[in-house]
């Protein structure tokens, strides 16, 4: 059996990023779009931690902490917007919210 290298982690992270991208681009439900964004951010974090471990440099993990901070802020504001949207439009489907489109 081969030992696990950084490339394994990179491939896993790329696959997770693709899954997240497909979710963002194709789903209609805004809650699931927000969850897909969390998947993308986790893919980034896997990459950062893998390189931090491979290069024996702690900076990658620090950056991962900042990415997690951003993910929290994004989820909080996104879900707040979702609640406001549901109160006004009674829908959680992204393609039914087209007020700015003509």
């Amino acid at each position, binding site marked *: 059996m081969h030992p696990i290298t950084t490339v394994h982690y990179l491939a*896993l992270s790329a696959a997770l990023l693709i*899954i997240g991208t497909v979710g963002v681009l194709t789903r*209609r439900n805004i*809650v699931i779009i927000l969850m897909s964004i969390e*998947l993308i951010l986790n893919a980034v974090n896997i990459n950062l931690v893998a390189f931090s471990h*491979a290069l024996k440099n702690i900076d990658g993990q620090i950056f991962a*902490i900042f990415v*997690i901070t951003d993910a929290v802020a994004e989820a909080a504001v996104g879900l707040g917007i979702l609640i406001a949207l549901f109160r006004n439009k009674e829908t959680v489907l992204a393609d039914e919210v087209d007020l700015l489109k003509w």
Partner: protein
Amino acid sequence: MLTDTILFYIFAVMVLAGGILTITRRNAVHSAISLIVSLLGVAGLYLLQQAEFLFAVQIVLYIGGIMVLFLFVIMLVNLDQAAKQRQFNKQWLIGLAAAGLVGAQLGWFILKGTDAFAIATTAMPGASGGEGNTERIAEVLFSQYLLPFEIASILLLVAVVGSVIMAKKRV
């Protein structure tokens, strides 16, 4: 070393299967539960790479904090009729094509790029002695990265105020 390899594949399957289930389930609660499985897999990968602090942060913050927030909003917002409707938008073909393009690019880069960073082909280094992971993170975070740390706290403050204003009935 063999244990590491087996654990990596177990966690990788958790991450990918959880991710795929997240974006394909009709019911948003099922999606959230699958996302928890995926995030647990990512936490396990952190532990495999001796990032103990991030492992704890991932469990406490992501699975304990963000997922509860998601489930709370799912319960608050009535998703029953949304679950009965069409789940994918009309741009799903373009979306899949764009995602496939990104995937092809990434795959090509990973295949070709191994020469670019020689470090990537060497086996993962084992556990390093000396001080622990959390101490090292704290030392760097509170000296070299003090200003970004403070800016992150401002960002969180803005996010708190913003989400309260968004979710309030009348501003």
